[in-house]
């Protein structure tokens, strides 16, 4: 027995050490990303560049009263989420996780935070339904109701994708609604510098919310200036700067295989409204514009094809991880770091823009995209 006990000691110690090392969090790949992000800016959320201003809109709350978002949430940390109560995955998880963390915060920090849920499914999400559903998580959560057009206007102003819903036959009760999967966090100053995509865990909220409630801001502002961007025009039409559409950056994170990769870019439309209706590349068999959506239950980060993207005059369009992006399918050879991938952007008005997307490490992607976006900021 003594031998047995002696041999159990290392096992016990190993167990305790292993558990102490892992703490109370899961260890998926996203954790390391979040940790890296936290190390970079002090927060686990994803930095939004440029910051979003708190929108000024009025919708109807769950009691049927008008609710002016900007006025009613002034001076509070405000988490804004667009979703719907019949959502099978992303919405209840975000709401439940925020509610669970808020319950554990001290009164002062909890009081400094408002959670606002704007329905993207006004047909089914009546004020009564919203009240009951949100109340099951946290009765202080604010539910807002407006028409699809009203909500889309708000989304547009926030540079977020509009509500996407397939045609549903009349009387159909079960259907899904495509919507942005991130929670926007507006700080005490009314600016949203951080957003929280799907995959953010309670531990992340517990890390960030108290800091936001204390008025802390992400440190390490994204690098600015065009120096961080290396745009290589190609071919005869190396005239990108001269045309209405200015592409600040086009990046391909180094793909693991030749099967598929993603293209991210930041561009600005300096003249009249235009439409990006296709993307192509000589280096890949197909290029498709996609939007990350909660989708049809098949994948959590469901990608919905986007047939075209309207870019209004003066608008900066960003294809970024977790949002709009271009899938490059079937590379002829695997792009490696330092190379560039030829890309053609097809606009209805501006015509075809030919550019080179630099192949970069995934770790540098956000920094470069943020720098590019900052370089385009008015």
């Amino acid at each position, binding site marked *: 027995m003594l031998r047995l006990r002696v041999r159990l000691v290392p096992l016990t110690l190993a167990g305790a050490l292993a558990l102490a090392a892992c703490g109370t969090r899961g260890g998926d790949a996203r954790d390391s990303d979040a940790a890296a992000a936290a190390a970079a800016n002090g927060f686990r959320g994803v930095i939004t560049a440029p910051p979003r201003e708190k929108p000024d809109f009025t919708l109807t709350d769950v009691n049927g009263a008008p609710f002016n978002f900007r006025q009613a949430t002034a001076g509070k940390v405000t988490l804004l989420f667009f979703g719907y109560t019949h959502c*099978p995955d992303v919405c209840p998880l975000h709401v439940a*996780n925020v509610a669970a963390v808020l319950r554990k915060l001290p009164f002062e920090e909890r009081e400094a935070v408002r959670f606002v849920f704007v329905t993207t499914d006004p047909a089914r999400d009546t004020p009564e339904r919203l009240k009951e559903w949100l109340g099951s998580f946290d009765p202080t959560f604010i539910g807002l109701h407006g028409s699809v057009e009203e909500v889309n206007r708000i989304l547009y102003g926030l540079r977020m994708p509009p509500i996407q819903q397939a045609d549903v036959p009349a009387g159909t009760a079960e259907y899904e609604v495509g919507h942005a999967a991130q929670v926007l966090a507006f700080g005490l100053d009314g600016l949203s510098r951080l957003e929280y995509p799907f995959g953010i865990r309670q531990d992340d909220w517990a890390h960030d919310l108290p800091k936001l409630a204390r008025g802390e801001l992400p440190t390490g502002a994204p690098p600015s200036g065009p120096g961080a961007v290396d745009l290589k025009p190609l071919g005869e039409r190396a005239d990108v700067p001269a045309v209405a559409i200015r592409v600040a950056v086009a990046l391909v994170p180094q793909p693991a295989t030749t099967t598929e990769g993603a293209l991210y870019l930041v561009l600005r439309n300096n003249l009249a409204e235009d439409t990006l209706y296709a993307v192509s590349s000589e280096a890949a068999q197909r290029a498709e514009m996609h939007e990350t959506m909660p989708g049809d239950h*098949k994948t959590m980060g469901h990608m919905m094809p986007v047939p075209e993207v309207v870019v209004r005059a003066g608008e900066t369009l960003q294809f970024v991880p977790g949002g709009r992006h271009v899938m490059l399918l079937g590379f002829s050879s695997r792009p490696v770091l330092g190379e560039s991938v030829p890309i053609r952007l097809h606009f209805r008005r501006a015509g075809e823009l030919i550019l080179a997307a630099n192949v970069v490490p995934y770790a540098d992607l956000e920094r470069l995209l943020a720098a590019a976006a900052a370089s385009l900021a008015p």
Partner: protein
Amino acid sequence: MQFWCSATTRAWTWTWQAYVGIWIFVLLVAAGMVAWNRVAARRAGMASSPPMHPLFVVGLLVLWLALDWPIGALGAGYLASVHMLQFLLIGLVAPPLLLRGISPQAQALVADHPLIQRLTSPIFALVVFNATVLVTHLPAVADTLMRSQLGSMVIDVSWLVTGLFFWWPVVVELPRRAKFPPPLRMLYLIGGLMFSPVMFGLAGFLAYSETPMYGFYELAPPIPGISSRDDHQAAGALMSVGGATIAFIAMSVIFFRWSKTDQ
């Protein structure tokens, strides 16, 4: 149709799903045991192998129940508490029942092999079982493996295999081998299961951690009415109470058999 239950991003539905790999695996376990007993009987000069012990069939059913839909699917992708129930069934309930299916001739066939002796020696079996329980429940490991069918299968099979090692010294009695007397068996179960620091440590972390331990359960499509926190707490309670209960039942059986023998 899938091969094995694994974490999924689909919302939970009570619609039956087929998992072919699980059926094949359970059939292989059954066929393997029958073949092993037959070979052993033939080598022992018996005309036919003895009939299969009914507890083996129960063990096989328990194994199938734990792996297949709905327990397997719920445990692999939605609820940590059901995952823990799976662990109890696969690692602690099925193995002693399955071991009852090994005929004395089949036991004798392998018992003298040095590898089997090493694998089933109490200290080794206890350490390997507890180490496997610990490693397969580490968030980093579980969050990674449970996302794939192969990874999920590795976890399930590792529980079963190390569970068989763990229970072997308790269940299998070989006349030629040094006896593992009942009091020691009971102590073995107390130290290795009832008050196992690994089981208790994991259960404590699950039940009392501020935030959910496992990312794939926290971010799994929610099942209405069950919060991630409640689910993790239930998993922790199940692990400590379930493990202790199984150990207590096994110790009771050992004790009553021992007292009967003494009488």
